């Protein structure tokens, strides 16, 4: 094939970007090697240390250049690059470029790498004797991550073995389309833009936080490996702790942000769905928290060093496993938000195998070396119960992972089947039919366990049993906590009215944890948060569990028509959605809802929905308006996203979302089909008469030559006719008014029909209304009349009165010129009945260049033509010509009465009681971790 010379492509950023990826990868390997040599013999090899540092800095610089280049390509909208074309568009606001950046795998790998770089540099400056081995681990991790972007092929002329996916590929290299035969193809293409679901501020802040969390899990792992490599099993315990706490805090906040996003912006109807992707971000956090607890034990007593190492290692391996699950495509059958496949599976598997193998190899070799305290933990010591708690946490993570990994077992079965030549697809298993019940069932008792342990253990001491006197005092105190917790549980139960004794157990355990920890913080620590950060986290955990029980168990769809549903179905079969017609209030459970209005701004249509709550006497006790919205795609062809809107109270949330629109509004093609199916019939109506059009009765109120339709943009020279019609129908107790409009512009007719949803009809004017304007004067018989101001005469059933003059008349066919003398006669035309039809015509008399002209006036409603032909100065009167159009039958219009109304929405409303406890508890939990990290942070004077 002949090489084409393309126009307008910018090739240098791609070269810079790809080069910096390779440089970053190589420099990371070099840093790992140099740091490794240095770590083997740290005294004699400052040269290796220097090389290690410079390599890591070079790696950092190259990574930053890669990120900057990719960002530059997206910001400049260089659509010749596949990544820019696939993720941004001309109209994408700057704020969403970030979201677009990490929408796909390479960008999110870079985000991960970015945080590793930041953490690596901080470690380089603060880790001191740990710098060497810790940075070996960080550099190797980075080498693996950057290898995902290499985009190299191992075998020449074959793409069988590919390493990484280069984000700097040109669009024309990634797909084969005829458009690329055009050298100027860039003129023809435009970016696809960001998935509308991701155009949300949460997607700007959630991924960076989550990835900082993921990246920081590497640090405790790196310290573990460093301790094993250096055989220093005690010195690492203190410096690693703040890192682990920091990581758990940030990762936790990242997860919470994810659930806030799901709850607030996506229409999942909840904050946690036990989706595999969610699970796999939670699991490393749980194991990390287990590790933090054993780390604390190790710090105070010297026990549990091995478990701490194992937990920190597993936390990182779970991060890698999570990376594999979300990025390899194995989850596509079971998760709603996995990435699309990029063919990196084997590389991701290798990533996990290398790091787990490396850890196991070094851990098992050192196993006997790791100090274990001979004497047993006393049963009533703090470390004993903390260790049990850590084990329980670990089991929680294990159980979640066990189920989440089902798709992996299927892949393994496929692999085994391939090896043995058998068909093992029969071994395939699917996720539990009801995942929420499945996970909740097991995590329920774990939560009870953890709550009780976190409440009771806090009063115990490290390294010793309680003195016999203290046991009594403690038991009394705890008895008091239990009693208080029972009171709170009763109150909670009274408030929420849930059934099932197991929930009492969980709520009781949670309140016990909250109360014990508060007691400890306030009375033992005298409110000193410096030592009491852990109590803050425990209180947060307890509150969070209560919030989960309340908002999960008592989550309730209130959007059902309570009159229609009464006594019909059991609770779980109650319909979730109601149909809501515009301006017709509907009673749902506890509220009267009304769909008030909708407004389109840009691509978003926002709906105003009013909720009214009344007491038994019908007095309004609460009223609020929510504004859920629907986002349409760029071509306005389809509905792209439905954004919920939530009314927040201190004790509950009312969550509303639009579950459905009329088919015609969600999809233009359906709208076209519907328009084509309408049967329009032609009618005409004279003033003061009623025309029956099928099941409708229509009368003419008046007409106007001024624009009234919202979709119409006026242009100069437009001739407009808008008719105000009144519609009655048998099944309607009021009269509806509609104003269809038609425009004549440059000999083309544009019709602006109106929908009359209430009666299921669509009304439009036809070009027949213009026929009178185009009628030649010689086919009309004009009658001359001489009139003074205020004079009237009868004409064809109408009374015509000269109502005065207008010295500066307006008319589409009249453009005033210098020296014109123009005057309009205002003729009031009305029927004989008292409150009958009336209209005004204003024919114009004009003297231009000493020549008299006149411009006629015409009404499509009465068929009357008027001309103002002469001024009679001798008697102060004027001469008017009047004609009635022959065979005039009235204003013509068309009605289709088989139009299905589309002024409705399908609404889903969910009540989440006490959901704020979940957010508050979650935040407290993470805040406590963060505070502890801050308190235990590295200080110069302490280390020396």
């Amino acid at each position, binding site marked *: 094939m002949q090489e084409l010379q393309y126009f307008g492509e910018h090739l240098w950023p791609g070269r810079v970007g790809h080069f910096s990826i390779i440089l970053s990868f190589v420099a990371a390997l070099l840093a790992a090697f140099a740091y490794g040599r240095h770590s083997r013999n740290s005294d004699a090899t400052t040269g290796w240390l220097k090389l290690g540092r410079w390599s890591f800095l070079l790696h950092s610089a190259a990574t930053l250049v890669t990120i900057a280049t990719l960002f530059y390509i997206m910001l400049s909208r260089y659509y010749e690059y596949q990544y820019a074309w*696939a993720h941004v568009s001309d109209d994408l606001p700057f704020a969403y470029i970030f979201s677009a950046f990490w929408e796909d795998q390479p960008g999110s790998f870079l985000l991960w790498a970015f945080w590793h770089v930041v953490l690596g540099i901080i470690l380089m400056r603060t880790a001191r004797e740990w710098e060497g081995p810790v940075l070996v681990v960080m550099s190797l991790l980075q080498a693996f991550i950057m290898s995902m972007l290499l985009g190299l092929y191992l075998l020449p002329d074959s793409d069988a073995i590919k390493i990484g996916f280069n984000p700097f590929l040109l669009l024309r290299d990634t*797909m084969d*389309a*005829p*458009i690329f*035969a*055009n050298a100027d193809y860039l003129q*023809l*293409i435009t970016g*696809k833009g960001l*998935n509308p679901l991701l155009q949300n501020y949460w997607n700007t802040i959630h991924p960076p936080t989550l990835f900082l969390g993921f990246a920081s899990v590497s640090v405790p792992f790196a310290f573990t490996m460093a301790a094993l490599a250096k055989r220093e099993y005690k010195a690492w315990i203190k410096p690693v702790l703040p890192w682990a706490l920091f990581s758990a805090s940030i990762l936790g906040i990242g997860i919470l942000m994810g659930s806030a996003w799901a709850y607030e912006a996506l229409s999942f109807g909840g904050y946690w769905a036990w989706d595999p992707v969610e699970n796999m971000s939670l699991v490393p956090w749980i194991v990390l928290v287990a590790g933090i607890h054993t780390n604390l034990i190790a710090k105070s007593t010297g026990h549990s060093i091995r478990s701490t190492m194992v937990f920190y290692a597993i936390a990182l391996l779970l991060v890698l496993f999570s990376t594999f699950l979300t990025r390899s495509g194995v989850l*596509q*059958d079971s998760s*709603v938000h996995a990435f*699309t*496949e990029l063919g990196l599976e084997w590389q991701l598997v290798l990533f996990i195998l290398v790091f787990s193998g490396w850890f196991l190899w070094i851990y098992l070799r050192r196993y006997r070396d790791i100090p274990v305290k001979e004497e*047993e*933990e006393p*049963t009533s010591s703090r470390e*004993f119960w903390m*260790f*049990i708690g850590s*084990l*329980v946490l670990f*089991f929680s993570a*294990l*159980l979640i992972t*066990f*189920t989440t990994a*089902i798709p992996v077992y299927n892949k393994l079965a496929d692999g085994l089947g391939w090896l043995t030549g058998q068909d093992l697809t029969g071994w*395939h*298993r*699917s*996720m*539990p*039919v*009801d995942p929420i019940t*499945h996970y909740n069932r*097991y995590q329920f008792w774990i939560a009870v366990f953890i709550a009780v342990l976190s409440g009771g253990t806090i009063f115990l001491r490290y390294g010793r049993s309680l003195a016999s006197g203290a046991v009594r005092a403690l038991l009394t105190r705890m008895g008091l906590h239990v009693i208080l917790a029972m009171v709170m549980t009763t109150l909670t139960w009274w408030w929420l009215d849930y059934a099932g004794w197991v929930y009492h157990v969980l709520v009781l355990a949670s309140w016990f944890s909250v109360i014990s920890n508060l007691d400890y913080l306030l009375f033992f620590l005298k409110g000193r948060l410096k030592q009491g950060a852990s109590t803050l986290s425990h209180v947060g955990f307890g509150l969070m569990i209560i919030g989960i029980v309340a908002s999960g168990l008592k989550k309730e769809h209130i959007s059902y028509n309570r009159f229609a549903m009464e006594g019909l179905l059991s609770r779980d*079969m109650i*319909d*979730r*959605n*109601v*149909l809501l017609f515009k301006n017709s209030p509907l009673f749902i459970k506890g509220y009267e809802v009304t769909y008030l209005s909708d407004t389109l701004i840009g691509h978003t249509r926002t709906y105003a929905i009013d909720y009214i709550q009344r007491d038994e006497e019908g007095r309004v006790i609460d009223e609020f308006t929510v504004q859920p919205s629907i986002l349409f795609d760029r071509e306005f062809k*389809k*509905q*792209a*996203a*439905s954004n919920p809107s939530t009314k927040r109270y201190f004790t509950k949330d009312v969550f509303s979302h639009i*579950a*459905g629109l*009329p*088919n015609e509004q*969600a999809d233009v093609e359906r709208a076209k089909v519907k328009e084509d199916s309408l049967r329009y019939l032609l009618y005409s109506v004279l003033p003061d008469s009623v025309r029956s059009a099928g099941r409708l009765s229509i009368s003419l109120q008046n007409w106007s030559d001024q624009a009234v339709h919202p979709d119409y943009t006026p242009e100069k020279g437009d001739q407009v006719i808008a008719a105000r019609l009144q519609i009655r129908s048998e099944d309607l107790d009021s009269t509806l008014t509609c104003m269809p409009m038609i425009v004549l512009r440059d000999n083309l007719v544009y019709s602006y029909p109106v929908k009359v949803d209430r009666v299921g009809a669509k009304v439009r004017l036809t070009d027949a209304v213009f026929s009178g304007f185009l009628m030649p004067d010689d086919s009309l018989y004009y009658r001359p009349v001489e009139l003074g101001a205020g004079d009237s005469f009868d004409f064809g059933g109408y009374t015509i009165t000269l109502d005065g003059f207008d010295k500066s008349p307006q008319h589409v066919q009249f453009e005033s010129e210098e020296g014109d003398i123009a005057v309009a006669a205002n003729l009031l035309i009305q029927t004989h009945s008292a409150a009958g039809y009336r209209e005004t015509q204003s024919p114009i008399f004009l003297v231009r260049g000493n020549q008299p002209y006149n411009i006629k006036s015409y009404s499509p409603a009465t068929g009357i033509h008027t001309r103002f032909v002469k001024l009679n100065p001798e008697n102060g009167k004027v001469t008017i010509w009047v004609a009635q159009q022959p065979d005039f039958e009235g204003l013509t219009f068309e009605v289709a009465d088989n139009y*299905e*109304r589309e002024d*409705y929405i*399908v609404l*889903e409303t969910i009540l989440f009681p006490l959901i704020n406890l979940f957010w508050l508890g979650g935040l407290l939990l993470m805040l406590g971790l963060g505070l502890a990290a801050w308190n235990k942070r590295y200080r110069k004077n302490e280390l020396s």
Partner: protein
Amino acid sequence: MKKIYIIAGVLILLGIGLLISAAGDMSTYSTFREAARIEAKVKVVGKLAKDREMYYNPTEDPNYFSFYVSDNEGEVRKVILRGAKPQDFELSEQIVVTGKMDGGDFLASELLMKCPSKYKDEEVFLQKES
């Protein structure tokens, strides 16, 4: 023997018990034939039968959406979802429905759909354009 080992051992046994019981929750992807036989809640994987009618008329019932699915054995059944029609439903390639048979129809309480990657349809679009 340390007490903590005993407790840890008990916990591990308990954990294994839990894992075994959790494994019981796993289900297999079923077919309509199987679903009719066992009369319990199952997951059926299949494809949307695009040539058959898809029905959702909110003015009639906002909680009734029906469509036809051809399962992995090629059997085509009507599926009724008690709920609103999901967005982009027409685009879905593979569908997983959770529910049970009710007469000849499959009554679904949940639906998961897999849509084609957005790259593919854009490719088609590019080819059509030029």
